[in-house]
């Protein structure tokens, strides 16, 4: 896979989102169930940041705390310890009145459809509209449009009793999204749906995310919808065990796999390497490494050009997709050259220990490196 420069531009641009614009900021969040001797910790010091427009899929075995985290973010549980901010409002110790107001900006889609049996599909969705005091005449076309979009056009005025499980779930989804909330939280939204309607639902999620900047957090085991995720968060035993920005990892992987030692790695190991790489930016003329220094890092150029200078003399220049800094790490020697940014340059940086552990596991690597170094001269 060759990554085009536009994807890289986007990636670099959004690398460090402004913390003030984050939709969800979880910091050092702990949670306990029960009291006294029965008190049991279910969330351990979790940290998670989610930007507007981001679609996050949260997976993990049952009992790992995904739903607890989801309901905490959704203000459906009281925050006990740590910080949890949604839409710049700290939930810890927030007054009941403010919580009620905040909930109006959140769309919740539950595993169970939770529809009123006594109300039609239309009326169930309208219950959400009534909250923001919309006039019936304004709400009606919107409700009909959403229900039609979800394939329920013929059944708008049916009671839940006359709808299939999947249809009921779609009504619940319509109810969750009708007010165009800033944050949509969904617990297994597609579990009851067939492939086609599940796809329709996630497509709608994507549209909402891109059109309204709505943040969507989905707890799911449904691997059919993983492709819509901007980020996949994995939880195990109350900890976030991995938090991967899918697009970012894929882009980094496509760049770093050019390096011989990395091309042998399995996809998951490569992703792990990609995730442990740090982005560093350099101004024009700024030295990236200095000849004679101790080598501690390995660089892959994401964007830009660099000059390689040995003893004050420019010997080569490298561009995006190229790498440098490996020789000192392999041979445990000081840097044999200086590298200067020729224009504003961004590099992915891997530290020495990570780098060495990958090298050591790669049998053919040393030969290749020697060849590569030879070719360069």
């Amino acid at each position, binding site marked *: 896979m060759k990554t085009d420069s536009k994807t890289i531009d986007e990636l670099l641009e959004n690398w460090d989102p402004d913390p003030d614009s984050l939709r969800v900021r979880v910091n050092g969040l702990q949670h306990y169930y029960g009291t006294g001797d029965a008190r049991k910790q279910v969330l351990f010091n979790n940290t998670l940041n989610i930007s507007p427009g981001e679609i996050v899929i949260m997976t993990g075995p049952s009992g790992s705390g995904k739903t607890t985290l989801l309901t905490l973010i959704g203000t459906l549980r009281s925050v006990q310890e740590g910080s949890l901010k949604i839409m710049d409002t700290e939930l810890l110790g927030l007054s009941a009145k403010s919580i009620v107001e905040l909930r109006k900006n959140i769309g919740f889609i539950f595993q169970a459809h939770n529809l009123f049996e006594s109300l039609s599909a239309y009326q169930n969705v309208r219950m959400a509209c009534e909250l923001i005091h*919309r006039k019936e005449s304004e709400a009606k076309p919107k409700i009909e449009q959403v229900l039609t979009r979800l394939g329920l056009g013929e059944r708008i005025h049916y009671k839940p009793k006359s709808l299939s499980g999947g249809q009921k779930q779609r009504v619940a989804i319509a109810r969750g999204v009708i007010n165009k909330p800033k944050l949509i939280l969904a617990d297994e939204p597609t579990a009851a749906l067939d492939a086609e309607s599940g796809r329709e639902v996630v497509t709608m999620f994507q549209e909402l995310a891109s059109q309204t900047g709505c943040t969507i957090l989905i707890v799911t085991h449904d691997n059919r919808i993983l492709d819509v995720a901007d980020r996949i968060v994995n939880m195990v035993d109350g900890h976030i065990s991995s938090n991967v920005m899918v697009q970012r990892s894929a882009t980094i992987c496509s760049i770093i796999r050019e390096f011989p030692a990395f091309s042998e790695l399995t996809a998951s190991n490569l992703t792990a390497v990609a995730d442990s790489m740090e982005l560093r930016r350099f101004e024009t003329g700024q030295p990236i490494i200095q000849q004679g220094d101790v080598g501690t890092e390995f660089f892959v150029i994401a964007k830009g050009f660099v000059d390689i200078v040995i003893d004050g003399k420019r010997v080569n220049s490298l561009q995006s997709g190229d790498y440098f800094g490996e020789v000192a790490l392999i041979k445990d020697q000081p840097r044999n050259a200086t590298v200067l940014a020729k224009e504003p340059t961004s590099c992915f940086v891997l530290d020495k220990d990570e780098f060495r552990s990958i090298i050591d596991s790669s049998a053919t690597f040393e030969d290749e490196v020697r060849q590569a170094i030879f070719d360069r001269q």
Partner: protein
Amino acid sequence: MKTPIAWRNLTHNKRKLLIAVSGVAFAVVLMFQQTGFENALFDSTVEIVKQTDCDVIIFNRARFALSSELRFKRDYINMAAGIKGVKSASPLFIDNTIALFHATNTQTAVKPKPRPIRVLGFDLNHTVWASDEINSQIQKLRTPDSALIDRLSKPEFGFQFDDQSLIGPSTGELLDSDVELVGTFKMGRDFAHEGNLVMSDRNFANYFRYRGIDPLSIVDLGLIKGQGIAAEELRNRIRAALPSAVTVVTKSEFIDREVAFWSASTPIGIIFKIGTAMGFAVGIIICYQILATDIADHLSELATLKAMGYSDNYFRSLVISESLILSILGFIPGLIFSLLIFQFSADMTGLIMLMTIPRAALILGLTVIMCLISGFIAMRKLIAADPASLF
């Protein structure tokens, strides 16, 4: 726009609604039953006074209740008659004895037995009764040994007193003397009396010789009618003129005093109030069950509303609406059923079972309060809990 969730939820399942409404109606009937019998006691006891045509009543100061046989000298009535503003002052003689009636031209299956009866004697020349029925039969009462019988007297006396064809030829025994039933009137039994006879003071004197050498010289009640004067003013005048051996009150004061005696000085009032309270408590339990079940059945849906941002006040008004709907829906059949029971009880007991608007309103109020209390208990969990714990 507002979706009437309370109404929808309650009426969605018709079978559940029927059970819920029956439950509330049951509590309504229980309360009506208790207040009904309590009122029947009071109404029946004072019915004799209500049927008199008078403004002020004189009686022995020691007479704590109508049924206590404490009398006063007739002289006081004569004294009252001379007071300015008094149109008439009439004695009413009341006594209890045993009567036995024979229906001569009927093959009644019930063998008549002697039973206690209340006898009311009055001066035929005075209009003592408000009842046109009695007043139109005054002439018949001039015959010696004649009397009118209360149609609501116990059927156990021997026959149906509302069957006019049986009245004429019927005779009976009163204090070992013959008595002839010449007609009927309507008054009603109470807890102490199984039936009533009305007769002239002369006939009364003949039967009740044991009351003294001149049985008509001592009186049970003195009934005073005024002319062009308010009852209270008349009462004050008479009270000032008569010695303190007698009590002088207006007719409505007399009724209140009698009701107050039964209600406060006897256990009866308390017993019925406890009964009403029990009905109320049973109602709360039933309503709580209904509303708590309804909330529990819809807990996930309500929690979803809570998650959407519906406020606690919304849920309060929701439960209040459900309580009000339930109380009204339960009250209507409860009232109808109670009216039937009142009718049936009145027929069976001869008691006066009155359903007045204030009494129905009282029970409606109690029903609404009952449902509201239940509703508030039932919704505590919904209000207090985090939505996440409700799914």
